[in-house]
């Protein structure tokens, strides 16, 4: 199974490449674009990034394995990130984490059978003033309660 970037994404990578004096620096942007197109960063995606940017495959692998926001296995359509760091913990972060786990019947870094939801316990996301918080894909939801979280889950189809 081979992976190829779409024309549009190739252009985006080319744009990212122009920001830097070396092509290696564009690897992080390319990984995001690959993850967006493919859902996760498989070995084929890494090979394609290495080919497009002309950088060693090992360098791409090094980046993908270092940063936690790159996923090497498929995540749900809605990737739910729950902060349990101190500020959120003090205001009930773990209760919310448990409530979501119970509701979806999955544990940390697991995906529901229908592929719709995945859940990740994350470190501080910089929303301590709105603690406890969760993020679904790129969107922040602050000042959460168990009820509000379950309501949000219901609304996601």
């Amino acid at each position, binding site marked *: 199974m081979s992976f190829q970037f779409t024309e549009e994404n190739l252009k985006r990578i080319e744009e990212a490449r122009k920001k830097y004096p070396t092509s*290696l620096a564009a690897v992080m942007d390319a990984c995001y674009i690959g993850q967006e197109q493919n859902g996760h960063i498989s070995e084929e995606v890494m090979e394609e990034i290495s080919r497009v940017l002309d950088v060693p495959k090992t360098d791409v692998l090094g980046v993908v394995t270092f940063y936690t926001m790159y996923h090497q296995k498929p995540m749900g359509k809605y990737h739910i990130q729950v902060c349990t*760091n101190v500020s959120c*913990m003090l205001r009930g972060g773990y209760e919310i984490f448990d409530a979501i786990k119970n509701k979806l019947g999955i544990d940390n870094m697991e995906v529901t059978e229908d592929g719709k939801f995945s859940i990740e316990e994350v470190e501080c996301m910089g929303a301590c003033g709105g603690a406890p918080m969760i993020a679904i894909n*790129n969107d922040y939801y602050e000042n959460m309660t168990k009820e509000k979280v379950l309501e949000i889950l219901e609304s996601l189809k």
Partner: protein
Amino acid sequence: MEKIVLPDIPNLDNLDVYIENGGFEGAKKAFQMSREDVIEEVKKSGLRGRGGAGFFTGLKWSFMPRTKTKPHYLAVNGDESEPGSFKDRQIFEKNPHQLIEGIIIAAYAIQAETVYIYIRGEYYNWIQMLQKAIDANYERGHLGEKMRETFNTDFYCNVYIHRGAGAYICGEESALMNSIEGRRGYPRVKPPFPAQNGLWGNPTTINNVETITNVPKIIANGGEWFASIGAPKHPGTLLFGVSGHVNKPGVYELPTGTLLTDIIYNYAGGVPGNKKIKCVIPGGSSMPPLRGDSIEGVKMDADSLREAGSMIGTGGIMVMDEDTNLLDVLLRISHFYHHESCGQCTPCREGTGWMEKILRRIKNGQGTSRDLDLLVDVAKNIEGRTVCALGDAAAWPVKFMIERFRDEFEKYVKPEVVIPVPNKIHSLKHSTFTVESIKISSKDGIQLKLDN
């Protein structure tokens, strides 16, 4: 009180509104000054870095080579991953143009033609907001080659956002540079310092987002004006992010030197249920915690906090009420640093793991009081023995939390004593027993009940 970084002006994220309210006056003035004079003015203002270390910004800029033989870079640190700090996000959202104006002035002062704003990957929506603001400034001729005409100068710079991908360590300046270069975020050994050998081996300056956002007002109003605000040795305002057990958590811009109790009780609305405060971490999770009964009279500026036994860090104030289980808090903090250690230096990679394991043992009810000493010992063996400051950041909460709240932690462990007992094989060897296993009676004297 005048707010410098986040003024109460509605729609300030609109470029026209920003310009109507004195925007780009600082940049215009800067381009009529020489580079040296801009740096001199910032030095005079006493502006110190807002990212945690509190280094003098003007002095940092002056380390950049005066004659340019290689490209110069400015990297703006918006990684903001320190638990308890959430200030830079407010700047991206509410006052992005002042940040961009500050970048223009700083880039001019250090002759950087390329600027990277490093923003953590989770801030996707705020990256979009800032990119919109950058695009608007390109259109208006404030950035790129057009700025030569706009500001009547021979200098121009380009500004790019580099999106991080979820690594706390990339907030460390040299790890941040590796990340911009597209590598794993490993901190570099210093020296050489970034001003000599930074991005791609070229002279680079790294400043925090909040630091840079202060610059336009300093140039517009003069360094002396800025130096007169707040604490004399650490002037200006700070964005204090208050979180945890307070009624009104949020970001409050206040002059340095404001009383910690004033921030907690007057601005953040006090503690819910009027409970007492057990512990306050004044500058983000890596700073030494203060006991609730010792915060009276503590002022929030670098020197006053140092005297009080902590540090200003990023100004992220975490408040914990009297019912907080500090063991849970410390375990969570240790888990964080274990998770975020990049693995480069042995003391940090191994030590953070051991500290978490020992704390988990205590949490499981199997800890003894000697474990507390062991924790402090491990922490002291990490501190100062690593390439970057993450080692210290991991060690301080453990060391100071246990030292300052020993009474609290003793409750979670079995007391253990070391008494010299005559041993038939090694007559003077010291042996260790838990207090429960020692029975003292007048009839039998001291008896030991051994489990194994």
